[in-house]
């Protein structure tokens, strides 16, 4: 029968809106306003899952995020693993199944959209129970900008489940009015279904909002910066540890009360209530009044409250004081509770005195304030003997806990502390706030609770069925094993037993386990403390954290002015930093190797053209520009004449190569420097750092102009003829336009700066035009080159051409441990300058070693072999026993069209002294013989650069 356990009256469900759903293959009905858990309970289903380690049946224990057991896999509408049935909002067509402690990620793509919101406020209130609402009201009435985030689908917190009255009306009526007043404030933002899961430095809080499957975005992450924060996060009830405390039908007393009052669900027919404090009595009375038979209240305290005792007597409920439930029986549902007196009577071992039949066992071991966010924000905790739990020390700037989160459990105290926290927060943010009038709450006298951690256990002496962390199946026996192994801190026991590491992060087991450990070690709970609380408070999917930063939006893509031309001509692209660079231009039927060999031949024999716009360009100007560049480059730049270009190497202060490029002097007080494509931002930051912090007296200004210039390299013996066809106002002859100089003029009718720079050893020109004209000029050059068979080439051919000339690439042939001398570039290091970055380090003992790894060439004995880049290099043809001494590694390796063979660059210990020697490189399962050579393979005398 459907909804057999649903009550006809009460509750916050909408009986006019039934919802059909499927669980573990069975079809059921619930109502709008249900969670999956409440709907299952209404249908008499307690067992939802089995446990992760022992496969024991497990039921619904809680009514919120603290649920340790009831893990479900959602199958429809979208597969989602590891949700707690107690937090899944029931919706039409939901399909779910119980999980044995772990779930499965969907293999399909997630079609939903996820988003991110950023917000600022004066006061952020986390939690919209009585304390949170009171805080929000006093802050909002002062005009402060307030955000209220509440994990639940509706506001009200404990008032939704307790059935309490405020001002003699249902508490939910006050909630309705408070919410309406807040909603009407223009500076207030209300966020239901929003869990704040992280609290970081300077009140940066991150929350997850569930917007539902129909919403524009399914979930969104809120990143909020708040001046002041009020934590009204409530509390979690603690279970008790006895043998068989995990049987379905065992439920936290307060949660049972919530199922009854909020969801109109009778969670059982005959209940035993086991408690250490007054709060469970309220649940027992409510359940009794709703027709549930209360078979017994078992109270661990010697003296029970007269207030509650008289209410029980009126209803004929038996109270067993100074007594505990020590074990249970039942198969897939609890069927009886076993009672044992706690009266200490000397050496007699405790034994079961009474067995009480039941199908519901309510437990309450006290309440833990939800201190997670307070603790994440580095707030400290103090153990309160009064309530037997850790409470926040109010010591964190701009963060205040209120209500149950501060250990103040009575509704009247929650309201008062919330209103005061809201007032103080608003005042701290500069508003004139007052707590305002508060509604009158019922008041019951509260008798002190008794902290009980380890109960006598006549039925289970080793503790293997006494569960402390149900989510991880960690028992008293497991913890004893850890303490006996010598572990005496909660952090160690946590890691040894996995206690508190499940989806719930130990919400119900945290303080409990500290108590159990303390009792085993004979130490104080206060002294042992808790494990560290870390974000997220509840699990968050990666999809939500990623938001829209996925796929094409994961990272910005930078393309050049000629990008579309490259796409149209079939080039695959290589990622260089954020840049897309054409890799090569295959003709129909060509593979990469064939295409690259063809492109290399063209550049060496006729003419090639490459888009080199991605090279970083920095404009350096000011009266002290020359002096500045002398300090940051290893070579002398102040002597460079206007109109001339010099290759330069930059080192960091430790003497290691940082970047390289060209320096063009365009005026007395102005230079244009180029950087490697991937390091342009790094170079600018490096230069700014030194300029601002060490040499602030230098009058120099740095501006990135990378994206102002489109740059085209025209390369090969025919490049001069191609250029001459489209250039005007530029004498292109070698005498009038020598190597390492530039000319301004027109190219294809556009103002251009043409530089004679070569990164291939061939006669070459770099044509810089305003970015806007990049494609136009590129096409004009390509057209003008047709009679010469002009060939566009990409980064791969550029790499081969430069490697044939032994030109290193910073970041590929170097790795931050290579000096200019290691590269054989002492010629680029000035001997005349008094100082420059790196100079002093060249004479450090380690930098001056003669057996440092040096850049050399390698020629494999097998001419067809192209060594894999990164291959290690060793001395012997057969590998000795490990550890094998490593000589260095291959940094660049290609097939050369000019040499018609494979070749490589490598860094090798004392490599320059070993030129001509044979060493070996493990390739696959063999050792390939390679000869060490000079790093320059082609045109050693440099005859080709002038054409």
């Amino acid at each position, binding site marked *: 029968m459907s909804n057999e356990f649903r009550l006809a009256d009460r509750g916050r469900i909408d009986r006019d809106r039934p919802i059909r759903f499927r669980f573990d293959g069975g079809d059921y009905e619930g109502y709008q306003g249900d969670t999956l858990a409440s709907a299952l309970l209404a249908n008499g289903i307690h067992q939802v899952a089995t446990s992760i380690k022992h496969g024991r049946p497990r039921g619904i224990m809680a009514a919120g995020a603290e649920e340790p057991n009831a893990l479900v896999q959602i199958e429809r509408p979208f597969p989602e693993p590891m949700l707690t049935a107690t937090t899944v909002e029931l919706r039409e067509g939901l399909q779910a199944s119980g999980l044995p402690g772990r779930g499965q990620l969907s293999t399909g793509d997630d079609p939903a959209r996820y988003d991110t919101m950023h917000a600022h406020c004066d006061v952020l209130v986390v939690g919209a129970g009585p304390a949170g609402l009171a805080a929000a009201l006093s802050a909002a009435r002062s005009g402060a900008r307030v955000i209220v985030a509440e994990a639940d689908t509706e506001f009200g917190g404990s008032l939704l489940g307790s059935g309490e009255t405020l001002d003699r009306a249902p508490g939910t009526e006050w909630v309705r009015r408070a919410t309406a007043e807040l909603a009407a404030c223009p500076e207030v933002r209300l966020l239901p279904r929003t869990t704040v899961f992280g609290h970081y430095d300077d009140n940066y809080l991150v929350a997850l909002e569930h917007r539902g499957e129909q919403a524009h975005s399914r979930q969104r992450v809120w990143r909020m*910066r708040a001046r002041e924060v009020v934590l009204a996060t409530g509390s979690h009830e603690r279970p008790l540890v006895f043998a068989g405390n995990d049987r379905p039908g065992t439920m936290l007393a307060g949660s049972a009360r919530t199922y009854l009052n909020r969801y109109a669900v009778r969670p059982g027919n005959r209940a035993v209530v086991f408690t250490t404090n007054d709060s469970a009595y309220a649940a027992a009375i409510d359940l009794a009044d709703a027709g549930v038979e209360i078979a017994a209240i078992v109270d661990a305290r010697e003296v029970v409250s007269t207030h509650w005792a008289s209410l029980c007597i009126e209803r004929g409920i038996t109270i067993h004081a100074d007594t505990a439930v020590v074990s249970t029986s039942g198969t897939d549902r609890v069927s009886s509770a076993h009672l044992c007196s706690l009266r200490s009577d000397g050496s007699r071992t405790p034994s079961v005195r009474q067995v009480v039949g039941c199908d519901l066992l309510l437990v309450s071991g006290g309440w833990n304030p939800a201190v997670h966010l307070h603790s994440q924000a580095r707030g400290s905790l103090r153990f309160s003997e009064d309530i037997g739990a850790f409470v926040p020390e109010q010591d964190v700037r701009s963060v205040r806990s209120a209500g149950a989160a501060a250990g103040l459990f009575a509704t009247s105290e929650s309201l008062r502390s919330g209103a005061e926290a809201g007032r103080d927060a608003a005042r701290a943010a500069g508003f004139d706030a007052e707590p305002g009038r508060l509604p009158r709450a019922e008041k019951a006298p509260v008798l002190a609770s008794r902290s009980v951690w380890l109960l006598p256990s006549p039925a289970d002496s080793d503790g293997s069925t006494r569960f402390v962390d149900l989510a991880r199946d960690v028992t008293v026996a497991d913890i004893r094993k850890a303490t006996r192994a010598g572990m005496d801190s909660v952090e160690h026991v946590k890691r040894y037993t996995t206690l508190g590491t499940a989806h719930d992060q130990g919400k119900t087991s945290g303080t409990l386990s500290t108590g159990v450990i303390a009792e085993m070690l004979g130490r104080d709970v206060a002294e042992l403390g808790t494990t560290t609380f870390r974000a997220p408070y509840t699990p968050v999917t990666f999809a939500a954290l990623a938001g829209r930063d996925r796929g094409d939006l994961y990272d910005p893509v930078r393309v050049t002015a000629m990008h579309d031309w490259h796409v149209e001509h079939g080039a695959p692209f290589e990622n260089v930093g954020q840049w897309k660079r054409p890799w090569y231009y295959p003709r129909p039927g060509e593979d990469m190797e064939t295409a690259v060999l063809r492109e290399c031949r063209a550049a060496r024999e006729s003419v090639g053209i490459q888009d080199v716009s991605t090279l970083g360009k920095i404009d350096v100007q000011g009266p002290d520009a020359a002096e500045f560049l002398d300090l940051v480059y290893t070579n002398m730049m102040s002597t460079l004449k206007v109109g001339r270009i010099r290759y330069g190497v930059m080192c960091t202060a430790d003497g290691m190569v940082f970047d390289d490029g060209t320096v063009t002097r365009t005026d007395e007080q102005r230079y244009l420097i180029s950087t490697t494509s991937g390091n342009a931002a790094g170079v600018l930051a490096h230069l700014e750092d030194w300029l*601002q*912090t060490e040499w602030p007296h230098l009058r120099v200004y740095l501006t990135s102009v990378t994206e102002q210039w489109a740059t085209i390299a025209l390369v090969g013996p025919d490049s001069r003829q191609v250029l001459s066809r489209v250039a005007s106002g530029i004498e292109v002859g070698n005498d009038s336009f020598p190597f390492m100089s530039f000319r301004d003029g027109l190219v294809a009718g556009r103002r251009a700066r043409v530089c004679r720079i070569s990164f291939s050893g061939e006669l070459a020109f770099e044509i810089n035009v305003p970015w806007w004209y990049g494609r136009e000029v590129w096409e004009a050059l390509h057209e003008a080159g047709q009679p010469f068979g002009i060939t566009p080439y990409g980064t791969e051919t550029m790499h081969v051409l430069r490697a044939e000339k032994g030109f290193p690439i910073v970041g590929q042939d170097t790795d931050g441990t290579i000096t200019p001398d290691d590269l054989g570039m002492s010629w680029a290091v000035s001997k005349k300058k008094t100082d420059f970055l790196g100079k*002093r380090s060249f004479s450090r003992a380690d930098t001056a070693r003669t057996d440092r790894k040096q850049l050399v060439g390698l020629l494999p004995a097998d001419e067809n072999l192209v060594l894999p880049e990164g291959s290690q290099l060793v001395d012997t043809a057969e590998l000795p026993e490990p550890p094998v001494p490593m000589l260095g590694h291959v940094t660049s390796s290609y097939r050369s069209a000019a040499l018609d063979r494979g070749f490589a660059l490598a860094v090798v210990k004392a490599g320059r002294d070993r030129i001509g020697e044979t060493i070996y490189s493990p390739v696959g399962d063999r050792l390939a013989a390679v000869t060490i050579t000079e790093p320059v393979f082609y045109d050693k005398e440099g005859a080709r650069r002038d054409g």
Partner: protein
Amino acid sequence: MMLIPCPWCGPRNEIEFHYGGQADVHYPSDPRSTSDEDWAHFLFFRDNPKGVFTERWSHAAGCRRWFTVHRDTVTNEIHPDDSASAARTVTR
């Protein structure tokens, strides 16, 4: 996510900044006459205090200026005077 007071732009999220390590590590005035040991200290040795640390930050995604703050490495609190400090205090 710390809120870092840029002396030029005001408080901004930590992700806009680039960390520059310990402040006041000055480039030796005459590297040539600096001993190997002192030079190594300049290059590689930095304090790592539990407590207040004088450190450099650069507002890399903002005004690109370097500045110095005093941050407690335990609490991440930045000394309140830093937000009002002379912006040109850019000691290394």
